[in-house]
């Protein structure tokens, strides 16, 4: 039986086929899906902020791109996945409120995307597809049987990465 595993803001979850990992209502946050196609093992991280150095006390490593992605990779490796086989797909990082151009805090979406791409590159994980930016909210479903990531938006058709 396939199970639907929900990943909340700042959480990391890993599982194997035929489970589905899902996160709903990504705004400025970024959903990172990493998959080992041979073993059909995958993990999802729901990242809120780009950089843990912003925070004085890092109570939850899952919140930040630079700490969450190494943790996600470590978990997958423990389950037997191998870094050279891993592929990543990312979605989210939008700017929901269009105006406040100069307010750094509101440009957090694009900054999250850049930080995630950087962290993936550092871990030598290939980024195979992305659906990021804009000003739309997204939900993502990561099917571990196929490695497909379905991106749902309110006013447009589903996109499959």
């Amino acid at each position, binding site marked *: 039986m396939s199970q639907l595993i929900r990943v909340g803001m*700042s959480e990391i979850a890993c599982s194997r086929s035929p489970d589905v990992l899902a996160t709903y*209502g990504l705004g400025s946050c970024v959903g990172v899906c990493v998959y080992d196609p041979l073993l059909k093992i995958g993990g999802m991280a729901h990242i809120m*902020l780009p950089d843990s150095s912003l*925070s004085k006390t890092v109570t939850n490593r899952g*919140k930040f791109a630079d700490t969450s992605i190494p943790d996600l990779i470590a978990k997958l490796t423990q389950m037997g996945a191998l870094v050279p086989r891993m592929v990543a797909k990312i979605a989210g990082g939008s700017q929901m*409120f269009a105006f406040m151009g100069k307010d750094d805090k509101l440009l957090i979406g694009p900054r999250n995307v850049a930080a995630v791409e950087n962290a993936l590159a550092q871990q030598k994980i290939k980024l195979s597809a992305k659906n990021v930016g804009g000003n*739309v909210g997204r*939900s993502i479903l990561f099917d571990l049987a196929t490695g497909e990531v379905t991106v749902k938006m309110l006013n447009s058709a589903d996109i499959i990465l």
Partner: protein
Amino acid sequence: MTQFADLSSIQLDAMREVGNIGAAHAATVLSQLLKQKVQMSVPRVSVTSLTEAAEFIGIPEMPMVGVYLRVFGDAPSKILYLYPKEQALFLAGLLLGETYKVRNILGEMEVSALKEIGNILTGAYVNAFSNFTKLNMISSVPALAFDMVGAIVNTVLADLGEVGDYALIIETKLTTSDSSINGHFFLVPDPDSLGVILKTLGVNGECHNSSGSGCRK
């Protein structure tokens, strides 16, 4: 800094009371604007884990209109209004007047009207809050998004993650007498602001007895 999770019940009560005063003024203004009675719920003060914030309102994928403002000054905070789309359009129509015909799209005019309502309500709320606490507060221009409610709430709360894992949310529901409008109104103080507000209210966490009557000011 005051940690959200450590708040005593008397401190939560104090926050509820300031929320009450602010929302009462906002409700009065809304009722004048709509020319009908507006009912206000007792504010709900809750400490929510950021992990579950997307579900705070209900189904995270439910489409809603969010109007968002920042409050600057002595106690920086965020203010968010959420309405279902039809109600938002209806509300915009009321402000736009008799010559305006309600449409089913959120065009420039509707967006502008909703932002203005956000401005007016926030003005009333912040003024009352500021008079009561003697804290200096001023609000930003409003921003509007129509999207999944989870995405709106996540985006508004994301930067709180820099300092903690929780958000303190003061929520009030404003309902017109015919229930045509049923909006949620949220005030979310920045983490550092919470201590400032509690201090001006005289409940800054120096209590050693459960009643809180021995609080040092």
